[in-house]
């Protein structure tokens, strides 16, 4: 009864509101701004946890003069985690970090074997067994102006890219 009375009283005076009322608009806008601000803040917090500078060794390093790598060389640079090979077509470097979960592969007669979960690669680094998702990356080899060869472990090149001096 009371309800009826109120609405009957209200209806003639109040226009049917079009769209969103001012109060709702301001309220919703306020909530929207608060949500957007929180997301920005959270994104900022996450960004803060991502280091701007890595205090790590450079992944680009000299490996020696070309003369130190005659044809037929197979060399594992332990601390750099790369293999360096030299054949008649040139020099090339293959990473020895398993693409599955980051263990160090060791060379075998037929290629490379990972100790952790049994991934196997052939001599070109192609996956021939186990769970590894990608082939072992071939790394960029270049020549420094002082005559040293340089391997850049951060730069992957196409399989079969061999460097000749």
């Amino acid at each position, binding site marked *: 009864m009371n309800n009826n009375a109120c609405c009957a009283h209200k209806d003639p005076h109040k226009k049917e509101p079009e769209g969103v009322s001012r109060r709702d608009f301001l309220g919703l806008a306020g909530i929207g701004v608060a949500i957007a601000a929180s997301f920005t803040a959270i994104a900022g917090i996450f960004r803060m946890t991502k280091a701007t500078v890595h205090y790590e060794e450079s992944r680009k390093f000299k490996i020696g003069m070309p003369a130190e790598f005659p044809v037929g060389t197979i060399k594992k640079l332990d601390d750099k985690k790369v293999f360096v090979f030299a054949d008649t077509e040139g020099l090339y470097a293959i990473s020895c970090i398993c693409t599955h979960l980051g263990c160090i592969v060791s060379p075998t007669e037929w290629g490379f074997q990972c100790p952790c979960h049994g991934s196997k690669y052939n001599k070109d680094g192609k996956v021939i067994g*186990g769970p590894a998702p*990608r082939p072992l990356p071939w790394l960029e080899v270049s020549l420094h102006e002082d005559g040293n060869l340089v391997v850049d472990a951060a730069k992957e090149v196409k399989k079969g890219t061999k460097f000749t001096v």
Partner: protein
Amino acid sequence: MSESTQTGINKFVGNLIGIKDSFLGSFLRSRSLLSDRSKAAVMVNNFFLHVQGAKTHINTLRPTYTFGMGLISLYLFFFAVISGVLLMIYYSPSLENAYDSVKDITNVVFGGNLIRNIHKWAGEGMIVFVMFHMARVFFTSSYKKGREFNWVVGIVLLVLTFILNFSGYLLPWDQLAYWAMVIGANIAGSPAEITDILGITKYFDFGGLQKELFLGGTVPGKATLPRVHFFHVMFLPIILVIFLGVHFWRVRKDGGLTKPDEFGPAPVDEKFLALPEKKGGIFPTNKTYGLMELAHGKTPAVDKDIENTVLSWPNLVWAEFAVLMLTFAGVFVYSMYINAPLKELANPLIPENPAKAPWYFLGLQELVSYSAFMGGIALPTLALIGLGLIPYLDREPQHVGLWFSNKQGKSVALQSFIVAIAALVGLLAFVVNFGWLRTWFTDIPQVAIILVNPGTLWVGFVMAWSLFIIKKTDSTRMGAIALFTMFLVSFVILTYVGTELRGPNWDFYWSKSQWPVH
């Protein structure tokens, strides 16, 4: 002594003599714990006890109903916190000092080795008992009727328990820690397998981002230890405590632990029951209801349960104290005899062979050895979502508070148990003997390995079996029992295989004594 003759000195001496009683009285807020009223008051007034009711249903106190699993998990957490605070006095989370400080704790600090062992075994014990507790809650249908969300909170606590353990495992910076960190980081990075297939890794490398946030760089090092340490000693424990609070609060608001709808006390228990006093007692025969009780359920449960309760003080409190003593004795004795492992200083050049994660992750590592992304991220996530959804997919209200629901439930659990063992052992035996897709088709694309591997097949089988049980029994509860039983069996079998039967190169060996020399 009349008022006029009592001097200040007399009053002072009187108070001094009375300190024993007055202090105890002020501490307990009542003079003696002889009447029901004071026994109830001690529960209600005490900060640490008031999360529990003044009276406890005797089903809660039946040892074979809960086996005290949740309580044991809580106590283990307390032990881990106390021992962890002590370890922090000597531990230093820097690359240069971490390993040496742990060696100091183990070999030099008085009692250091024991405290470190207690910390280690209490933490790992949490995993075991949290799992047991989850199994108890599941098999007694205690995730139903208003407790659905608390089950989800429990899953969060389970995950936190795992992460806390894992982050602690990384802190000593020994070979175990380093290679667990490498493997963990690469699992975090494994969504790159998917983005690689889609060809969008260049633009959106989610895996790489996760990996970098975990390591604070591209390889485990200087930046990694401080953030792992922070997570382990601060962030995760605080989150865990908050969720624990919510977990307990909700149990209390849901009326304590679950109990069967029809409950008759055993004759031996009857003499302990807090029978309503005829007159003048604080628990009247005609129970009155607060708003909270009326807000739950459709009608107030008049005359129900009130007759099957006992006073929490001393019945519940003493039982809890007994469990505390037993738990501590267990952890202490175990820690006296079994040392927490500490290997050589981390060496980034030489992976352990086999490089194994801590035991509680070796089930996952077995799955990871099929596919890093599936085994390390997708399947565990799927399993957690599946577990979390159980209360929402099985809403049958019957049989709450009864182990395995009924006869049918027992037989479904047994069948699922046997089928799971047979099928999983068969699958693993096949994989060990014949290899998998890549052994037969060297050029098979990675996407096929990700989608079709023993892990995904197994999860598919578990889901199919549960649906089959639902269809056969016309009961979602039976399907849930099938699913959960198979989950437990998978966890145990995969963990066992990963721990005991996998050797160098993740090859299969019946025992460690057969491992090749290397």
